[in-house]
């Protein structure tokens, strides 16, 4: 399962790689990373059909996660539709409503609960 993680914080990358160490080793998941919405879109241009899940931060300089979500739902409105989960430090109702309105599948708050995330991945892959 290919997962694209979009976050402007570079250290998110080693964190995911280590948290999913076993899963990566067992080839259950494969991670790609983008540090901005723009970068994520560029990546999706080529490989949107491979990506099963997109985890995106909302609060990023430039294109926000919500805008990225909007693009994903409009520009790549063809099957297979990726699952999009929004992540934010501001876990308020307004952010949640916006994300859901724009077509997010799930909404997670920082700090990320990786065990919860793994549970959710299981349901997706099944």
């Amino acid at each position, binding site marked *: 399962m290919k997962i694209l993680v979009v976050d402007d*914080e570079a250290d998110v990358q080693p964190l995911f790689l*280590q948290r999913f*160490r076993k899963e990566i080793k067992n080839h259950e998941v494969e991670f790609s990373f983008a540090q901005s919405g723009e970068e994520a879109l560029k990546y999706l241009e080529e490989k949107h059909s491979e990506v099963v899940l997109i985890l995106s931060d909302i609060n990023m*300089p*430039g294109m926000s996660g919500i805008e990225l979500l909007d693009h994903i739902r409009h520009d790549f409105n063809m099957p297979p539709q990726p699952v999009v989960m929004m992540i934010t430090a*501001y876990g308020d109702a307004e952010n949640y409503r916006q994300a859901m309105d724009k077509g997010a599948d799930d909404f997670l708050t920082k*700090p*990320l609960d990786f065990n919860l995330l793994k549970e959710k991945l299981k349901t997706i892959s099944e």
Partner: protein
Amino acid sequence: MFFFTFLAAFLLTVRIRRSLKFSPIYPKWRAALTASGWIIIGLWFLFNYYFDSEVNEILGALVLAGIVSYLKKEPDFKSFEVLLFAHYPLIIAAFINGVVSLAFPDFFDKWDNFFLCAQLVAFGWIFARFATSKKQQEEIKRVNERKSELEVLVAQRTAEITKQRNELQDALKELQATQAQLIQQEKLASLGELTAGIAHEIQNPLNFVNNFSEVSMELIDEMEQELNKGDREEAMAIASDIKQNLEKIRHHGYRADGIVKGMLQHSRASSNVREPTNINTIADEYFRLAYHGLRAKDKSFNAELIANLDPNLPVINIVSQDVGRVLLNMFTNAFYAVHDKKKTAGPDYKPKVEVSTHTIHTISGSPNGIEIRVKDNGSGIPDAIKDKIMQPFFTTKPAGEGTGLGLSLSYDIIVKAHKGKIDINSKEGEGTEFVIFLPA
């Protein structure tokens, strides 16, 4: 004719006594002057009885000369100099009269009238001079009176001015106290703007600290398992990951630490101590804080942040928290401007805020100072208010949202305290660029 000299001497004492009547030195001289008047009369009778008129003429001249020369030596009678001088012609005339009448009686008899005339004229001269001297003295008296009047007036005015000055000084002290208070309020207001940004900025590194330490504990369990299995190579790989994680924990710990320190510095009263500072660090830090501060307050807000920081920027001596406040103010304004424009602009509008730093060189090529540019593509500053934006309490924000002190304090900090410059390039509807120059 020696009558004239004695009369003149007598009158002289009388006149002086009268003139002195209201002066402070009168008691000192009253007795002496009265006595000398009587002595002169006594002498006249005495000489008249014992000597011929020719001898008396000479004696009279000597008596008068004696009195005049005595008075001239006394500093108390300085103001009578004109009067005293006026007696010389009479003394000389009387003396010549006496000598000629003794030595050349025939010649004298022949020119008798002429000698008499000379003495009369000399005597009359004294009166004329006395009148002039009296006038002069009156004039001096009037001038003195006027002078003391003026002195009283001057004293009054001085008292008034001193009072006014004291009042102004009190008012100034009060104003300075108010200003200090306002500056503190402005700092607190901007701290309020920052709080959300700071919370976000601290939360992020804290999340990393938590996450990396958790994952490291898991990794250690895994490493133990690998070692038990005897897979030394895998255990070594895990160990190197753990080391990397610890490095990350430390890095994010310091990051949070720096933010807290920066926040404390921001709210603390300025120490006014200049320290060698890398402007890039402050610019980057406040750029993010300002962005997240606004972002946390208004979820719909977003902007592209561009930082072009000159990696060779020289370190300069500045009061870093003051300059940091200036930058924060500029960033907040820039974000506010793009946010403002986004409300009215179409969907194609991309809010953009850029900070750049540059080294400014002299003609000879050595660093002269640094330049910080804060540029936005926001709503711009209307020409009508361009002159006013640096004025204290001027704000375009709704009541209660801005203190109106941000730019005015920025001006004080950059221009007055750091001898730098602030230039503004702005076009209404297109954007604004603030250019700050700080000398090396």
